[in-house]
């Protein structure tokens, strides 16, 4: 359980970090290390250099810019959990973050690290999709913004190049929206067998906007577009919830593993979506 030897650098700017990555294809970024360290200790990877981002000040913290919340990639789960601006403007994110790992993991693990890891069973990728977050990555060719739907490409794979670093995540204001993060697992602190992140906006008694994202129902987090379409424009009553939730597994490709077969997950996604919508719409 001892990693293969590696060099360790702790740059203080994003540019320096990118330069190290660009110069060495076997260098690897480490954020909170909650996924990478076990992989190293198990010798499932042997990077030449670890680029620790903890000293890059600009990557830490939450701020408000216009009508957006800007969350630094190195902000820990615990910081997000206790941030008043997150609670106010993106309560869904706080709800999802509260279910990540255990207390120790949440004190070390980071928002950006979890998103970059891109495990489709993770809590935050699904939440980021439901929030329609914008990822901001910096590489040798500069800065670019990536919509959450385009960011997650496949299992453990994002659209970022190996020499790009996720620096911040921008989240639109969803204050006033109904929200719910439903996570189903067999044990406390386990990964989601299926999860559902739901946001519902109501006005004048009707549902004017719906966003639903599913975790672990495909090789990447996916939006349940059919549910969103079916629910938006309805009165938000329990009949509409049930009808919309019935579309949850449309277009998904759930895995079969020790935690459940694909058809079980398909069923579970409909059940959890119904619960999430009930809670989010206040039906």
């Amino acid at each position, binding site marked *: 359980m001892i990693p*293969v030897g590696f060099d360790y650098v702790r740059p203080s700017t994003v540019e320096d970090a990118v330069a190290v990555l660009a110069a060495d*294809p*076997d260098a*690897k970024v480490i954020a909170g290390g909650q*996924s*990478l360290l*076990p*992989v190293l200790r*198990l*010798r*499932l*990877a*042997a*990077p030449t250099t670890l680029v620790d981002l903890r000293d890059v000040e600009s990557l830490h913290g939450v701020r408000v810019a216009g009508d957006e919340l800007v969350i630094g990639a190195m902000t820990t789960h615990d910081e997000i959990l206790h941030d008043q601006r997150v609670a106010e403007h993106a309560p869904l994110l706080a709800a999802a973050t509260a279910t990540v790992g255990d207390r120790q993991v949440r004190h070390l693990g980071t928002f950006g690290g979890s998103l970059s*890891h*891109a*495990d*489709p*069973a*993770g809590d935050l990728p699904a939440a980021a999709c439901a929030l329609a977050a914008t990822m901001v990555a910096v590489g040798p060719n500069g800065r670019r913004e990536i919509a959450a739907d385009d960011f997650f*490409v*496949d*299992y*453990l*794979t*994002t*659209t*970022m*190049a*190996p020499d790009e670093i996720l620096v911040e995540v921008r989240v639109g204001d969803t204050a006033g929206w109904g929200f719910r993060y439903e996570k189903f697992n067999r044990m406390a602190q386990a*990964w*989601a067998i299926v999860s559902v992140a739901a946001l519902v906006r109501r006005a004048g008694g009707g549902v004017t906007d719906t966003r639903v994202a599913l975790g*672990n129902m495909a*090789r990447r987090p996916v939006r349940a577009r059919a549910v969103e379409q079916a629910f938006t424009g309805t009165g938000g009553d329990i009949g509409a919830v049930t009808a919309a939730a019935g579309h949850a597994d449309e277009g998904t490709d759930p*895995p*079969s*593993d*020790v935690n459940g077969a694909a058809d079980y997950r398909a069923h579970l996604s409909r059940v959890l979506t119904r619960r999430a919508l009930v809670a989010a719409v206040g039906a």
Partner: protein
Amino acid sequence: MELTNTFTVPAPVDEAWARLLDLPAVAPCLPGATLTDSDGDSFTGTVKVKLGPISLTYKGSGRIAERDDAAHRVVVEASGRETRGPGTATATITATLVPDGDGTRVDVVTDLTVTGRPAQFGRSMLADVSARLLDQFAACVADQLRPAPAAATTTDPGHGTDTVGAVVADAGPGAASTAAPATQHVPDEAAPIDLFEVTGARQLVRRAIPYVAAFAVGALVAAAVARLRRRDRAT
């Protein structure tokens, strides 16, 4: 542990049979792999699997244990060992070719035995990795067969593009050129399909290996992870 995968190639069964058993020719179709030696029915090679935080290199060998030209059925035994760790894997791969319209359906059953270690992932890698490897392999082989080499009969040059064209298109220049039907030697720097080309991770080793061995190794990594998760839970 047993894995089952199926893919189709746009060529008659006899042609597909000959091609799939031509290891040096099909080897470049398996991503991350290098064929170091190939001698008739046996071969040695390495494969590098890179996915997310994981990066593993396996070294192994294999041989064709059974070959039934009439039934178009081949059994390959392969084994590999991690170059930087204690993990090992052995696999018995049975491939059966069945005519399917104008093309050929290939059913692959892989029986894996893996030793290795746990990892912490929310989703088992097994199905995803093996399916991706085989998808890429099938697309590449289909592309090789499409130009209809010498013995081709009525292969429709466009057949199969709907299913595999999109993947092949991302393979980058040179991917199809490795398909020269008469290839007898293992290219030093083959340009096979990069498993992760479509996903944007372009820093991978792009070499070749007999598809069976590489498939086995890729799948075994997945199996290792799956098994480890189970062991994790037990502790």
